[in-house]
């Protein structure tokens, strides 16, 4: 089992004098999977990533990456890891090619790796442009090129969609999906954009206030998301009363009427209750709770 894991964190904790950024976090990422690390800003995602990469020392707990125990300053495993942490940065006085050349030399990637990465991330036009003169989106592409240049076994990406336009986001999503499916690269990506991660990740970890609230795969997420029935009605109070008497609920009022927590197969019974009570309604539509709603429910509605 251990050899199948790309990342194994046990009771990972980081305390600062004023705040505990991460507390008792257990995390397992299997090789070859795309793992989405979800959380609001300040939830502890970046601190966790920094501990995974040996940039900061955990106050307690341990991390293994690609089977190697991560210790401060220990760098051997980093040759098999590509990463983008928080913001995309590069030496502003150096060109795109020169920035990538630094990565190539120190990861011992072959001579052609720089050209390959430039082509892969569509940076050809900017090859000889200084990094300081790149747009935010192209800086992000450069950072991704740096992370992927040496064909790492594990890619750790902190908010990889930052600064990218919608087309760029789709392109990077496809690129990461291709890496995982075709090359078996493990992708660990953090994001606060929940729908973005949900579209890509095989498994999700939801972190909140430094704690891992839940870890689940996409099927489990689908099954856990609440089923709702949307009922447009001019008399939502009457509808709620009638449905409560019949044992349905809970329900929430919205502008068009109400949303009832119920399965799609309950539609005939709900319709029957409303008709019997004489409550006017214009339709009943099954809805799946979206990921944002699920996330908010899980975190107690905190944003």
């Amino acid at each position, binding site marked *: 089992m251990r050899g199948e894991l790309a990342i194994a964190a046990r009771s990972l904790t980081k305390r600062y004098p004023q705040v505990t950024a991460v507390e008792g976090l257990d995390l397992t990422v299997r090789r070859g999977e795309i793992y989405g690390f979800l959380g609001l800003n300040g939830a502890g995602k970046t601190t966790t990533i920094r501990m995974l990469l040996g*940039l*900061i020392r955990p106050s307690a707990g341990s991390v293994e990456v690609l089977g190697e125990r991560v210790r401060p300053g220990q760098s051997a495993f980093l040759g098999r890891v590509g990463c983008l942490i928080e913001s995309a940065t590069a030496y502003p006085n*150096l060109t795109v090619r020169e920035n990538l050349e630094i990565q190539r030399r120190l990861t011992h990637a072959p001579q052609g790796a720089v050209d390959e990465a430039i082509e892969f991330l569509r940076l050809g036009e900017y090859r000889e442009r200084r990094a300081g003169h790149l747009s935010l989106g192209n800086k992000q592409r450069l950072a991704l090129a740096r992370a992927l240049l040496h064909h790492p076994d594990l890619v750790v990406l902190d908010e990889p969609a930052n600064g990218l336009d919608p087309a760029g986001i789709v392109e990077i999503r496809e690129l990461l999906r291709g890496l995982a499916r075709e090359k078996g690269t493990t992708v660990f990506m953090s994001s606060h954009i929940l729908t973005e991660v949900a579209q890509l990740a095989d498994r999700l970890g939801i972190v909140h206030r430094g704690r891992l609230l839940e870890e689940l795969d996409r099927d489990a997420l689908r099954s856990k998301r609440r089923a709702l029935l949307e009922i447009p009605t001019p008399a939502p109070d009457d509808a709620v009363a009638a449905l409560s008497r019949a044992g349905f609920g809970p329900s929430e009022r919205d502008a068009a009427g109400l949303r009832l927590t119920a399965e799609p197969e309950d539609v005939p019974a709900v319709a029957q209750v409303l008709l019997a009570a004489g409550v006017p309604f214009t339709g009943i539509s099954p809805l799946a709770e979206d990921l944002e709603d699920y996330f908010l429910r899980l975190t107690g509605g905190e944003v």
Partner: protein
Amino acid sequence: MFGDVLRTEFLKLRHSRVPWISLVALALGPLGLALFMWIAAEPARAKSLGLVGTKASLLGLAATWPAFLTMFTEVVGGGGLLLLAFVIPYLFGREYQEGTAKNMLTLPAGRHLFVVAKFTVAAVWWVIIVAAVSLETFAIGFALSLPGFTSSLAVTALLRTLELAGVAFLLSSFVGFMALLGRGYLTPLGFAIGTLALGDIFSHTGWAAWFPWSIESLLSGTLGPQVATLPVGSLLVLLLTFLLGVAATAAQLRWGDNTQ
């Protein structure tokens, strides 16, 4: 691996203006001295030049090669310490200022290699500046036709310049540590100014030979009688200071939390 790290550290300086700025900064020293020599050579000029002329007169300068080269060695000693307080923090602190420290520290190379490579780059940088400014000084001296030039004087002055440049470099390893600690340029600069002030104080206490930042003044003679050669104890203090500074820098990079 060290060769690769060193090459990348030199590559990071490409297209950067900072090495040129540092060269120009130290090159201004001999130009200022040339102005003093020019005034001292013709005291009548002092009257027409206001403050600068008065200052030059007050120094009681003689417009000769020995005086010119003595002042030049003092510029390299004192000015070098301040210049290195920019150069070394630039190499270390820029990684934090430009947000690239996290990139550097997630490369598969020992962190101590980056420290040694950056100090090596600083040493090469410093040697080039000192060589260029020495050439400039001799060119200025000949252009001013100063009297009293002898080859033995030139050799002695060059050796003293090298000694002072070496001392300035050995004293500067702690500014690398300060740049990592402060994650930028201000902390090391403050440290450099503070140690220069402490050096000044210690040079009047009889402990000048033992306090690292006073030793430079023994060689240059700026704060007391000049010594021909440094005592062995002072050399050991300098070497120990340098090694401790490098070790502290390496330790900070290896074990310090990098939360940039």
